[in-house]
């Protein structure tokens, strides 16, 4: 008898999701429920949770304990960091970046959202839209997360009321018109009882949408990637010094966007010189084309002086070459604020430079979305619009067009800590 192929051997794709919400909203319970109901949970993990639940005198198995990570957190009863969790269904593999919800952890949510395909925001049906939910939606929008799912949790505590759900949905839709959200869905759930998490709720027959997991399985994310603008940041130059491989010069990197093909005419930045892609190689052989997020090595028809931090693009579709950067920055350093006149190291694609903060135009109140003008610094977890001048030109697109070439980090040159995350808005061309 032929062995049946494990479902995991079939070609599945990977969906990255970020969750935000506090313990009070039932976020840990929801994640525990997803792991439990998708049968990702292992018996010994569940046994440990059951044991701790009993020790703490709970009447039921507290699935939230699954996501309790470090002793430091348990001691303080809080979540301090981004935790990554994994589960799979026969359709998809999922990576959850699980972030704490409170305002002091804005930087963690920014971190989790930076790579997410979908953000799952949780709120409590009894409390409705809070400042926290508005902040989470704003951050997801700022970080360009293409899909947002608002889970209205604890529907059991509002008698599974359609009216309660509709009121929250209407209020949120009204608020969301001020944000750039591409795809927004609403799901009424009870994480505790499992309603509409993996299986459809019998208690809410009025809801005709999919349960959360089924929704996540079916989300179409392939078109979220930019396959139009060719951007290939040179990451590493391969030049083997060996007797068997002679005169080899390969430019390695990960395709940030667009589709590269052998034979394509390309422009090298910053030199502006043009050449042709000779071959696109992987260790497993040649490929005809490379698209994000493939990691490949290209060889070029001409010998040019190209190094890490340079970029290949198409002659008629180039990023902006800029030293003046206009961006929204989330400040992440607890020891010192970002101040006008401050100098930092900046990393953009594979390129490092130094950056001077020329101007802080305004701070955004993340709870009300109001602009606060006349500020000269950004403290921890604050987000504001800034103008930077860099020592080297960067090859940028707006974050809206390209999450890879529209983002950067700032690093404190004294402590080497990552202190800021930036998404690029307008960028002016170097004169």
């Amino acid at each position, binding site marked *: 008898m032929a062995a049946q192929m494990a479902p995991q051997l079939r070609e599945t794709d990977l969906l990255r999701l970020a969750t935000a919400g506090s313990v009070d909203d039932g976020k840990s319970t929801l994640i525990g429920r997803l792991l439990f109901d998708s049968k990702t949970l292992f018996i010994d993990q569940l046994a440990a949770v059951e044991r701790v639940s009993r020790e703490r005198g709970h009447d039921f198995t507290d699935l939230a304990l699954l996501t309790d990570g470090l002793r430091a957190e348990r001691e303080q009863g809080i979540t301090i960091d981004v935790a990554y969790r994994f589960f799979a269904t026969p359709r998809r593999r999922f990576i959850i970046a699980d972030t704490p919800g409170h305002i002091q952890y804005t930087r963690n949510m920014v971190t989790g959202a930076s790579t997410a395909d979908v953000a799952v925001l949780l709120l409590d049906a009894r409390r409705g839209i809070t400042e926290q939910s508005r902040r989470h939606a704003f951050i997801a929008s700022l970080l360009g997360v293409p899909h947002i799912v608002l889970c209205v949790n604890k529907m059991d505590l509002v008698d599974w009321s359609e009216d309660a759900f509709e009121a929250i949905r209407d209020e949120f839709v009204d608020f969301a018109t001020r944000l750039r959200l591409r795809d927004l869905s609403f799901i009424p759930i009870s994480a505790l009882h499992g309603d509409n998490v993996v299986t459809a709720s019998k208690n809410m027959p009025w809801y005709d949408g999919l349960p959360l997991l089924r929704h996540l399985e079916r989300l179409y994310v392939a078109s979220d990637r930019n396959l139009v603008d060719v951007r290939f940041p040179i990451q590493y130059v391969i030049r083997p010094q060996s007797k068997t491989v002679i005169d080899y010069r390969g430019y390695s990197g990960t395709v940030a966007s667009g589709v590269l093909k052998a034979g394509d005419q390309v422009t090298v930045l910053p030199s502006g010189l043009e050449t042709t892609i000779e071959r696109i190689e992987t*260790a497993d052989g040649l*490929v005809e084309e490379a698209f994000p997020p493939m990691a490949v090595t290209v060889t070029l028809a001409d010998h040019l002086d190209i190094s890490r931090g340079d970029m290949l693009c198409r002659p008629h579709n180039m990023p902006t070459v800029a030293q003046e950067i206009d961006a929204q920055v989330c400040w992440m350093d607890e020891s010192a604020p970002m101040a006008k006149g401050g100098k930092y190291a900046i990393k953009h694609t594979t390129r490092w430079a130094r950056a001077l903060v020329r101007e802080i135009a305004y701070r955004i109140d993340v709870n009300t979305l109001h602009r606060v003008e006349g500020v000269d610094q950004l403290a921890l977890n604050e987000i504001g619009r800034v103008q930077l001048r860099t020592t080297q030109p960067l090859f940028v697109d707006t974050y809206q067009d390209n999450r890879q070439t529209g983002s950067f*980090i700032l690093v404190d040159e004294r402590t080497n800590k990552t202190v800021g995350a930036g998404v690029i808005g307008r960028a002016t061309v170097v004169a």
Partner: protein
Amino acid sequence: MIPSALRRTRSERGPLKSHVLSNLRALEAESIFIFREVAAEMARPCLLFSGGKDSTVMLAIARKAFAPAPLPFPIMHVDTGLNFPEVLAYRDRWVKELGLKLIVASVPDAIERGIVQEEPNGSRNRIQTPVLLEAVEQNGFDCLFGGARRDEEKARAKERVFSFRDEFGQWDPKNQRPELWSLYNGRVHQGQSIRVFPLSNWTELDIWTYIAAEKVDIAPLYFAEEREVITRDGMLYMVNEFTPRKDGEKSERRKVRYRTIGDANLTAAVESDADTLEAIVTEIAAARITERGATRGDDRVSETSMEDRKREGYF
């Protein structure tokens, strides 16, 4: 030129599906990106190789990242003196075949020199940390690649891909650098270092599926075979010099394999018929117990043992 052994045709790789990378190819691409980022930015990286499945996959992908050039960094094995001989033989075979530069940091040697002291329970889990840190210092490594995965354990679920370590090699969970997009920050001062985990986002099943798909040569202990075992604390231990039969214990021959490979005195085998890669994948896909729960005496010590060891400078 690409060595012919590594070359595969398009039909073997499967057709490209509307520019979507499969889960495994996406994970592989992410790992390759991480290797190249380190090679470009860190002064002296080194790859930790234990002979286990994770470090084997890590090494296989590292070679892909730099092909056709050789690996631009050495590999290091922290030899606790409690390795399965089969694993040491396997390690040496890889090193020889691939022409790798191997550094061995020896725990028995450190015990002899008085650097560390044997612990009463016979576990060398804790005492291998100072030995590792000494080797890092002596060789001036500013970066170590480790094969840890976030799905393995709670403390690891919160670790960065680029994990900062202070001058004492310690991990401080409250003092981690935010990690956004794929913009990794490996900047350190003299004496500090970064631990880098290229397989952070892989699960155990991904590892096995990859091994099967790529036909990665892995240590023979992972395949089921009839072996002489004893049952101790509900776990199956192979009878050998590290776990000899005690008085009153009965051994028997059973078909077993290893799901993880750690120190021979603490790593248990699991009953299994899986003697091919495909069978292993099928078994892991259906497994209902975590790999560490099933096989590791050392992780049963306390709920926070991994967190504590990491704080001291362990992986």
